[in-house]
């Protein structure tokens, strides 16, 4: 392993351990790491936008590809900075409206066409017995689950009588689903810790052992 690799591994190990130190007690190391992290992330954004947007999406096409009109979105982008002045913040509305309006135009259709329609269609299941009890039971669970969940999130009538009953079934289904979600999420959190421990053990301690052998 070259010297550079050693330095890299030890820098990561130092950073990892100083952040883990927070578990024992909040300390200056953790605070410092946190502030450095916030700074590096902001710096990363700056470098990224400088290259990915200003150079690659504007300067390069404008000067080498003849798309001279790309200065217009550039100006709209710069106008966004008027948000920092209380008096002129209204100037940024045009740029904001242009972006938000565009996203709204996409979502208005994609949410209906890409989510509501297909999800409705795939809930229209046959409740017949033709392919066995198992698939009937599953279809029943799905149909009752979807309808009772939609009913639970229905706000135009008090949840009383039949409506209340279906909403009650809805909350039971929702709790089962959230329970499943809880179980999955526990695994997600643990994996992240395992990732760090794998680094500390295999790479860092590995590099120490490698040093002496």
């Amino acid at each position, binding site marked *: 392993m070259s010297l550079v690799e050693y330095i890299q591994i030890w820098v990561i190990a130092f950073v990892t351990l100083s952040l883990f130190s927070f578990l024992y007690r909040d300390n200056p190391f953790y605070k410092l790491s946190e502030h450095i992290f916030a700074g590096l992330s902001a710096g990363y954004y700056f470098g990224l936008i400088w290259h990915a947007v200003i150079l690659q999406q504007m300067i390069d096409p404008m000067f080498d590809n003849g798309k001279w009109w790309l200065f217009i979105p550039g100006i709209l982008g710069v106008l966004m900075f008027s948000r920092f002045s209380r008096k002129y913040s209204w100037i940024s509305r045009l740029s904001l409206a242009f972006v938000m309006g565009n996203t709204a135009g996409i979502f208005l259709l994609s949410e209906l066409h890409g989510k509501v329609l297909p999800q409705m269609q795939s809930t229209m299941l046959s409740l017949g017995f033709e392919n066995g009890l198992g698939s009937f039971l599953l279809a029943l669970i799905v149909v009752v689950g979807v309808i009772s969940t939609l009913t639970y999130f229905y706000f135009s009538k008090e949840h009383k009588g039949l409506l209340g009953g279906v909403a009650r079934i809805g909350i039971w289904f929702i709790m089962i689903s959230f329970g499943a979600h809880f179980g999955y999420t*526990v*695994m*997600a959190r*643990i994996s992240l810790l395992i990732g760090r421990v794998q680094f500390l053990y295999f790479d860092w301690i590995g590099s120490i052992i490698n040093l002496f052998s």
Partner: protein
Amino acid sequence: MTILLVFAYILLILIGAFLLYMAFKTDDRRYIYAAVAFYVIFPVIVTLKLPITTSPEVKQLYDAVEALPDSSTVMLTFDYYPSTLAETEPMSHAALHHLFRKDCKVITMTTIPLGGPSIAERVTRKLAEEYNKVYGIDFVNLGYKANYVAVLKGMGTSIETIYPTDNSGTRLSEIPMMENIENYSDIDFIFVVADNSIVDYWISIVNAQYNNPVGTGVTAVMAPRYFAYISSGQMTGMLGGMKGAAEYETLLNKPAAANMGMTSQSLVHLFIIFSVIAGNIIFLTSKKGRDGKRT
């Protein structure tokens, strides 16, 4: 050997119970932290080989990629933050192994501003060496562009208008691989590795409007939500969390980081189940003295 194993397990359980007892006694949660650290570190040192069963969604994704004709074009997305590398990186590694093994042309891109492009560069270049793939001919990294909805929608008509150049600034017209690739219709499969709700837009915009098959590798936090898209056929297979990655690695017989982590997962999960039960027993027994809500 089994006596040793049984003895190890008893020891593990005793340590867990002791630390839990101390946590309850002193109300100092650092005992629980110690238990978690122990249960994670111990199996990393002493790895137990555990059978990994394959779930249907993972098999569906594996089969879908396996069925792709060799040298077809696949878009692999790095839509994850550095915070979830432990779960998502094994997935993108396994995906690249699978795609490079099948000589697929790989286009990588990302919608994540913090680290997306750098992660994509690092992972693809490392694996490209292993399969001696050439940048610009076998794989290309488009990098990041802001406003993911516009990016996803824009690539439906013309990738080049959204990405005039690749991540390192080379114009797309100068990249041999991108010659006859204009938009989604020239891409055979989209493999999304993500840790956020961008997956919803890959499905509701790209799959619904451009009919590309979309397979995903998602963090365990996101997985339960996407069973809805699996069963409606909008999503072609899914890897759910580290277990999904481990299953995919096993199918590719390339066991790596995810497989190693499964023993630690098992132990910590059992410990958490035990502490939920213990916590609630204490809560319910002491509940007799106080009303349901904590006063």
